């Protein structure tokens, strides 16, 4: 199967790219500093100065406990500090979709009078959807990530739904052609990663775009799939007369969760990241743009341009480790998905 080697090749390219960047690695920051750099990057452009103020202050605080306390407080402040602008609308929209997904799920269980065990699924789905929404908050607040991420997510979601012909019955009982698997699991996420990278001219932004698109698509397709189950119920082919209605409904709801809340986001984020990294390898200026702020940090400019990206080079070894893990998990997920869908 050519998909797996292709994915692994992309991961290898990205890891090689990371190794190159590690050459310019600076002094290793501690966790509070990395945390605060991340949080400072969430602030809107007009609040950028305050992120620098927090970072400058942290640099003069000694003692592990005091640094942690200060950094955590600043992270909370950065996360909540207005203005949210369009990010607020994005978060509300995602929250609405997430609540819609849980609500439709619960209404299906109520409608068919399914037992207490089925409600465990509602709990799991609620945790996943809430986690997705919370994970989207910092991404939505990143400059240059929200729009391509949301657009990419809608594009991925629509493509997944379109592959089933936009019908509820066909969505549940779909049988994809063989060419659909590489399209949905490789080409589509890769296109999102490349688009995000080119949109902002930054490899870091490309990876974040892929993550936001993965979350957006997962939430959207999951809601659509749950509505489809609510609409179709236990009906439609294949003729599962040997099973109870409750079993079929639970099976379909469970499939929705596995495919759209786990598999789709994981593969989209992983392959999108790989594509972004591969593009950065071919166009080194994309990575150079991310590192400018690191080089000027605290030296040339009193206010670095992009604090959120400042830790990119310094955290390369850890990132490499995380990336490797993601790659392995993504490859395994892809293998499982391809086996299930094609077979």
């Amino acid at each position, binding site marked *: 199967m050519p998909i797996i080697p292709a994915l692994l090749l992309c991961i290898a390219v990205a890891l090689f790219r990371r190794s190159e960047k590690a050459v310019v690695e600076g002094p290793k920051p501690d966790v509070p500093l990395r945390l605060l750099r991340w949080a400072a990057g969430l602030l809107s452009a007009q609040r950028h100065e305050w992120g620098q103020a927090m*970072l400058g202050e942290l640099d003069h605080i000694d003692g592990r406990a005091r640094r942690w306390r200060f950094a955590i407080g600043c992270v909370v402040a950065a996360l909540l500090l207005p203005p949210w602008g369009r990010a607020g609308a994005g978060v509300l929209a995602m929250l609405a979709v997430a609540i819609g997904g849980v609500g439709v799920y619960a209404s299906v269980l109520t409608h068919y009078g399914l037992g207490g065990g089925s409600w465990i699924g509602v709990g799991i789905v609620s945790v996943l959807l809430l986690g997705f929404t919370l994970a989207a908050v910092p991404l939505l607040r990143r400059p240059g990530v929200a729009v391509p991420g949301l657009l990419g997510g809608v594009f991925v979601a629509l493509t997944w739904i379109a592959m089933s012909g936009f019908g509820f019955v066909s969505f549940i009982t779909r049988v994809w052609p063989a060419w659909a698997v590489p399209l949905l699991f490789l080409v589509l996420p890769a296109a999102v990663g490349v688009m995000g990278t080119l949109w902002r001219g930054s490899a870091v932004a490309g990876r974040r775009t892929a993550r936001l698109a993965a979350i957006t698509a997962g939430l959207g397709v999951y809601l659509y799939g749950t509505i489809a189950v609510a609409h179709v119920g236990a009906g439609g082919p294949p003729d599962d007369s040997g099973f109870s209605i409750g079993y079929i409904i639970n099976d379909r709801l469970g499939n929705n969760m596995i495919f759209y809340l786990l598999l789709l986001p994981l593969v989209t984020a992983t392959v999108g990241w790989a594509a972004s990294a591969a593009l950065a390898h071919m166009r080194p200026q994309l990575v150079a743009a991310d590192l400018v702020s690191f080089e000027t940090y605290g030296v040339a400019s009193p206010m670095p341009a992009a604090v959120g990206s400042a830790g990119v080079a310094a955290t390369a070894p850890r990132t490499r480790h995380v990336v490797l893990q993601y790659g392995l998990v993504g490859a395994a997920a892809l293998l499982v998905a391809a086996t299930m869908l094609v077979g």
Partner: protein
Amino acid sequence: MQRNRPPSAQTINVLRALAADPAQWRYGYDLATDVQLKSGSLYPILVRLADRGLLETSWEPSHNSRPPRHLYRLTLAGREYVAALTPARADKKIPRAHNRLSEA
């Protein structure tokens, strides 16, 4: 929509700490230690005071490649506000002209 809530006790503490020596520039962490506020509370207060024109900010030049430090002190309007705030708080009244500070 304008809100009429009085400034919080934390905001008043910050203002009073800054007003203790209005000419002196203060660091954020020192200010937080002085008024016993966590950074998560202090910075939103400072941001809103600055937005209201009550707080002046500046950057301390960096040394040895260390990041620059942000400095704070009250503006003239800030000093006037603190002066007006003290008797008003004693009477449990807030000057109408400064109602929007309640967001701080």
